[in-house]
C-alpha cells in the first residue's frame, strides 16, 4: 500500500496493478478465506422441559431449538391418518436484530418455517407415527445472516436428542457470490451486499440434498461450483453436529478407537476430518 504513490507516476507499471491484487489470496470482509465457515458451536439437550433441544452459535447467530413429540396433534383435523406431521415454527426475538423487530410472525418467518419443514421431512421417519405431530420450535435470539441454515443445523441435533427416528442428520450451509467470487457461509454483510445467496441443506451420509434455494444471479458453472462448495461446508457442519450429540454422553473414545488403528497420526491431529471419511 505504501508503494501506491510511486506506481502512479510511471505509466509502464499501471497494467501490473490489477494483477497484483489478483495474485494474493482475496479475503472477505471479516477476514475469512472463501471456503471458511464462521465459528460454530452446538450444544444439545439445553432445555429440560423439551423432549429434545439444541443451542447453536454460528458466528454471531444465536439460536435455540426445542423439539416436542411425537405427540397428539392439536387441532385433531390437521393430523394425517398415515403419517406424523412435522411442524416447524421459526421465530425471531424482537431484540435479535437492530432495529427492533415486531414479534408478530412475518411473511419471511412463514417462508423459513415451511422451508425448514421441507428440509427436515426427508430425514424423519414420519410414517412410524400416524396421527401424531412432531413440533420444532426455533427461537432466534441474535441474527447475523444465514439463520435458516443455522436453524436447520440446530433442529437436526434437537430431533436426534428427542429420540425421533431419523434416516440421517441434516446439515445446512449457504454459498454466495460477492465481487464475482464464490464464498461459503455468508454473514449478514455478505448477504446484503452480495450478488447471490444459495442456502443448501444436505444429508451427509446419504448424500442427498434436501433444500436448495437461491437469490440473485449465478451462471450455470458457478451454480455447480457453488453447490459443491456448499456440500463441503455441510460436511464440516455435520462433524460439529456429531461432536455436539456425542458430548452429551461423554463417550467419544469408543468411536475413535477403530479409526486410530488405521491412521494413528491423523486422528490425533484432526479427529473431526477423519470421522467424515468413514
Amino acid at each position, binding site marked *: 500500500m505504501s508503494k501506491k504513490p510511486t506506481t502512479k507516476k510511471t505509466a509502464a507499471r499501471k497494467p501490473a496493478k490489477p494483477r497484483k491484487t489478483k495474485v494474493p489470496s482475496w479475503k472477505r470482509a471479516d477476514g475469512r478465506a472463501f471456503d471458511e465457515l464462521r465459528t460454530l458451536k452446538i450444544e444439545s439437550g439445553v432445555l429440560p422441559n423439551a*423432549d*429434545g433441544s439444541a443451542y447453536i452459535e454460528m458466528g454471531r447467530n444465536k439460536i435455540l431449538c426445542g423439539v416436542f*413429540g*411425537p*405427540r*397428539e396433534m392439536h387441532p385433531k383435523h390437521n393430523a394425517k391418518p398415515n403419517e*406424523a406431521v412435522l411442524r416447524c415454527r421459526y421465530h425471531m426475538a424482537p431484540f435479535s436484530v437492530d432495529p427492533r423487530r415486531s414479534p408478530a410472525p412475518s411473511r419471511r418467518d412463514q417462508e423459513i418455517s415451511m422451508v425448514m419443514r421441507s428440509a427436515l421431512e426427508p*430425514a424423519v*421417519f414420519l410414517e412410524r*407415527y*400416524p*396421527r*401424531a405431530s412432531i413440533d420444532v420450535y426455533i427461537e432466534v435470539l441474535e441474527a447475523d445472516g444465514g439463520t435458516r441454515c443455522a436453524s436447520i443445523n440446530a433442529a437436526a441435533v434437537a430431533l*436426534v*436428542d*428427542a*429420540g*425421533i*427416528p*431419523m*434416516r*440421517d*442428520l441434516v446439515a445446512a450451509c449457504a454459498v454466495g457470490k460477492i465481487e464475482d467470487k464464490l464464498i461459503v457461509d455468508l454473514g449478514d454483510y455478505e448477504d446484503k451486499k452480495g450478488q447471490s445467496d444459495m442456502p443448501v441443506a444436505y*444429508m*451427509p*451420509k*446419504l448424500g442427498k440434498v434436501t433444500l436448495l434455494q437461491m437469490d440473485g444471479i449465478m451462471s450455470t458453472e458457478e451454480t455447480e461450483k457453488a453447490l459443491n462448495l456448499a456440500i463441503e461446508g455441510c460436511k464440516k457442519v455435520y462433524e460439529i453436529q*456429531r461432536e455436539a*450429540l*456425542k458430548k452429551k*454422553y461423554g*463417550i*467419544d473414545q*469408543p*468411536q475413535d*478407537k*477403530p479409526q486410530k488403528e488405521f491412521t494413528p497420526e491423523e486422528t490425533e491431529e484432526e479427529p473431526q476430518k477423519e470421522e467424515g471419511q*468413514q
Partner: protein
Amino acid sequence: MSANYQDRDLVLPGDVLFEGRIRTGENTYRSQEQVYATRLGLVNYSPENVSVTALSAGYTPLVGDVVIGKVVDMDLGEWRIDIGAQSEAVMGIPDAVDRPFRTDYVMTRVLDIGDTMIAKIVDLDRRRTPVLSILGPGLGKLYDGFIVHITPSKIPRLIGKKGSMINMIIKETGCRVVIGQNGRVLISGPNREREAMVVKVINKIELEAHTSGLTNRTQEYLRQLKESSQ
C-alpha cells in the same frame, strides 16, 4: 459382510452399522444391503442381527406394559389418559370399576381429571390407541409419592439383571418403587429424605445408563447418601 463398529459403540442416525445381508433389529433400517442406525444409541452386534439400544427415545406402548398415567380428559363412559406416548390412552368404565355396568355411575368418583394412576395396557385398538385397565393387583389411583421421569429405553438398567438394581434400591432405602414402562417411576417411602435419596439415585442411573458396573457404583453412591444424611 462386515461390521463397521465395535460392540457398544456410540452411533448416530445415518451411521452405516453393517454392510451385507443381516436381520435388522431395533432402531435400525436397511437400504441397499446396508444397515443404518435411526437413533442415537449403542450398537449391538449378534450373529443374526444388528440393533441399537437407544439412549434417547420416546415410549412405544405395548400390550401388557404397566404404566403411570394422568387423566387429562373425560368423555361419556371413558377417560383419556396421558401416558407419555404418541397418542393418549383411553379407559372405559368396565376397565375401571369391578362391578356390573350401570349407566348412572359418577365417573369423577372413580377418577377425576388430574388424577394419577398405575394402569396396565390391555389392548391396542384398531387405531393403535392404548386401552388401559386399573383392575388388578398393584393397579389403581395414586394418593401419595414422588414421580420421576427416566428415558423409557433406560428402564432395563434401572431394573438390572433379574431385578438386581431395583431390589438393591428398595432394600437400601425401604421405599416402595413402581416402574412404569413409559418412563415414569413412582417412589413412596417412610419419609421425604428416603424418597429424595431414590430420586437422586434414579437421576444418576439416567445419566450413566450407558456405562458398565452401574449396580456396584449405585450401591456405593446410596451408602454415601445415607452416611451424609445421618
